[in-house]
């Protein structure tokens, strides 16, 4: 007897992380088919960027992965700097590292909260995460003027210098963060229900993860040692000592724990960067923002975003706007193996698997 039910999870389902839809076929509670449907949030970002000036694309990148605007800014700035051959001011490099690692921290703790919400833990972990994230968002607001739509990076540096007392506040956040992570771990990682819900669910083998184009924590959870901060050492990451954690099983639990461990490493980077930041201009005075015309050519700039490899592929024809503007969104590409991960699991696992990939629909649909 095989009675299957087709149900549509989304686009207005409580736990699809935005307007994402999955057409799921269930046999009892077991998933036998899963078809992801996305595009509900498509905003034509790439085409808009191709019809605007180089600078005007910057605020749009905030809206890709709206949880981590500053790393998006950095990836785009990096690509343009590569294309136009712009040097980055020394102080700005440090500011970029500090803001990027703060972004990674708040993304990872928000991830912990969201995945617990997917497991039905009633938002408690999410609220603790948001309590802590609030401190980081306050830092962003006092630095960039906005909590989420920062629009802060510029070609060759950053838009404005750190306000007085900002570094001290950032240091306090970094110092207080391990205590918060300890609290989260006490709440979560020993919890038998959580272990049972995460361990052994949807394991992803390393070779499959590589072939599927996975990146970021999802890839490292499968045991692949690949972190663009190490591989490319973009910016000034080669100056900091930090470790890259990697899992062994590649199941949801590994994907969960990798984020916790990465957050701890980010704190280490933050502390080093805050301690060694030099004085100086925050933007290369020779870099042109308005009316930039990079020489004809192409460039691919990529960074290790909190969710994976975020890359911008740009082609310039020497004009005042990009000829081609292409984004490699980690959320979308990490989603490609969703069906494979979900087959044979229970419907309740689908939410957890989706949560463990950590997507933001702004980036999936662009």
């Amino acid at each position, binding site marked *: 007897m095989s009675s299957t*039910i*087709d*149900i549509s999870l989304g686009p207005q*389902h*409580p*736990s699809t992380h935005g307007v994402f839809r999955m057409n799921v076929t*269930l046999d009892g*509670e077991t998933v036998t088919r899963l078809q992801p449907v996305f595009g509900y949030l498509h905003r034509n970002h790439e085409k808009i960027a191709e019809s605007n000036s180089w600078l005007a694309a910057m605020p749009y990148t905030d809206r890709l992965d709206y949880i981590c605007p500053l790393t998006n800014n950095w990836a785009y700035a990096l690509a343009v700097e590569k294309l136009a051959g712009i040097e980055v001011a020394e102080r700005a490099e440090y500011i970029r590292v500090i803001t990027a690692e703060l972004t990674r921290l708040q993304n990872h703790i928000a991830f912990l909260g969201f995945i*617990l*919400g*997917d*497991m*039905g*833990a*009633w*938002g*408690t972990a999410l*609220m*603790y995460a948001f*309590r802590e994230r609030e401190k980081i968002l306050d830092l962003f607001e006092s630095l960039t003027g906005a909590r989420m739509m920062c629009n802060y990076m510029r070609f060759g540096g950053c838009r404005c210098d750190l306000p007085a007392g900002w570094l001290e506040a950032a240091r306090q956040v970094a110092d207080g963060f391990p205590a918060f992570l300890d609290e989260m771990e006490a*709440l979560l990682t020993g*919890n*038998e*229900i*959580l*272990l*049972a*819900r995460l*361990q*052994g669910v949807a394991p992803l083998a390393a070779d499959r993860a590589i072939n599927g184009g996975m990146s970021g924590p999802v890839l490292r959870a499968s045991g692949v*040692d690949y972190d663009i901060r*190490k591989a490319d050492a973009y910016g000034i990451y080669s100056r900091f*000592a930090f*470790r*890259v*954690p*990697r*899992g*062994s*099983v590649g199941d949801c*639990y*590994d994907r969960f*724990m*990798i984020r916790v*461990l990465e957050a701890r490493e980010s704190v280490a980077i933050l502390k080093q960067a805050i301690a060694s930041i030099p004085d100086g201009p925050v933007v290369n005075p020779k870099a042109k923002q308005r009316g930039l015309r990079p020489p004809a050519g192409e460039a691919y700039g990529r960074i290790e975003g909190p969710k994976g490899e975020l890359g911008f592929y740009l082609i310039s024809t020497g004009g005042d706007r990009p000829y081609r503007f292409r984004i490699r969104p980690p959320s979308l590409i990490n989603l490609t193996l969703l069906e494979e991960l979900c087959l044979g699991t*229970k*419907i*309740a*696992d*689908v*939410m957890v698997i989706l949560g463990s990939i950590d997507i933001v629909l702004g980036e999936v649909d662009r």
Partner: protein
Amino acid sequence: MNLLERAPIELKAWLLNLLGVFGVPDWALAILSALLIIGTVIAVFLGLFALTSVMERKILARVQNRLGPNRVGPFGLFQPVADGIKMITKEDLVPRGADPIVHFLAPVVMMVPALLVLAILPYGRDMVPVELEAGILYFFAVGAGTEVAVFMAGWGSNNKYSVLGAMRAIAQMISYEIPLVLSAIVAAMIAGSLMPSVIVAAQGGFAFGFVPQWFVFTPWGFTAGLIFYIGALAESNRSPFDLPEGESELVAGHLTEYSGFKYATFFMAEYVGMFAICGLFVTLFLGGWQAPLPFLEIIPSWCWFFGKVCFVAFTMIWVRATLPRLRIDHLLAFAWKFLLPMSFAAFLAAACWHYAGRGALGWGMSLVIVAVPYLALGTSFTRRFAVSKRTYQFSE
């Protein structure tokens, strides 16, 4: 003091006396007396429901470091009024494909057993609305109607989420009813009666003059009480057993297609049912209306009863705020492979405790009988579903 203790009973007697003086016939007085009791019980529990609906949100909020509702009235206490107005004025939607009769009857069927089971709880000294010899059995027998209601709601809505939710609910309720009833029987066995008032009386008195002799303070009672508590969480669909309406998976399960006052009725029934099962838990294991310390007996017994019920309800909210939801296969395996054997162990432990003379020897024996299966089952169970702690490699 004594006056306060007996206040509800005396008040009723005084009222009936007064009416008797005015020549109301005896049979009418008997009906009136019953109606008074029914009205009081329902009013108290609906009041508790209203209070909880706001307190739960406040407690959850505080656990999550938020403030919770604080806009309607002082400290947000009038929130239930606002909720009620909202619920009543909301449009009552019935899906086109729904079975109108079943869809309509489900909340009614849900409400009836929730209210009926309140009849046998001993609310205080000499305050049992209906003294039934098989009171505990009555509770579970009538409570079985809830399952029918959940099924009706799930099937009658003609919604896939609803049907899935209803199937989950039924599987869960049937599975958890067994450990629930078995652990209740442990208490009934030691008290030697299925009558709630006798069970409460069996827990009276104090060991060493200050340790209350509630069943929960014995190893077998603690085990059975914990099993009963877990079963109660599952029976009232509370987190972490809220799979039937697990919002991250099934939107709202069998309640998906309900709105307006029907939804409010479901909501109310669930909370009244939760209080009823908390009341039974208090009666069976927490000494019912008995005071926890001798000198505290000046506080009326019914205050103790409701205080304990509120405490148990608070712990349920606390658990809800902490634990993630189980998965359906974990849930069923937990009921059949852990709770059921554990309730047998509690059964055996209680018997040993009884035959060893209910003293220190029995205490120790029952502790061993309970602890050994707990460790064995718990370890094998966690090993089966939750693989051990992992270590992670780092690359520099």
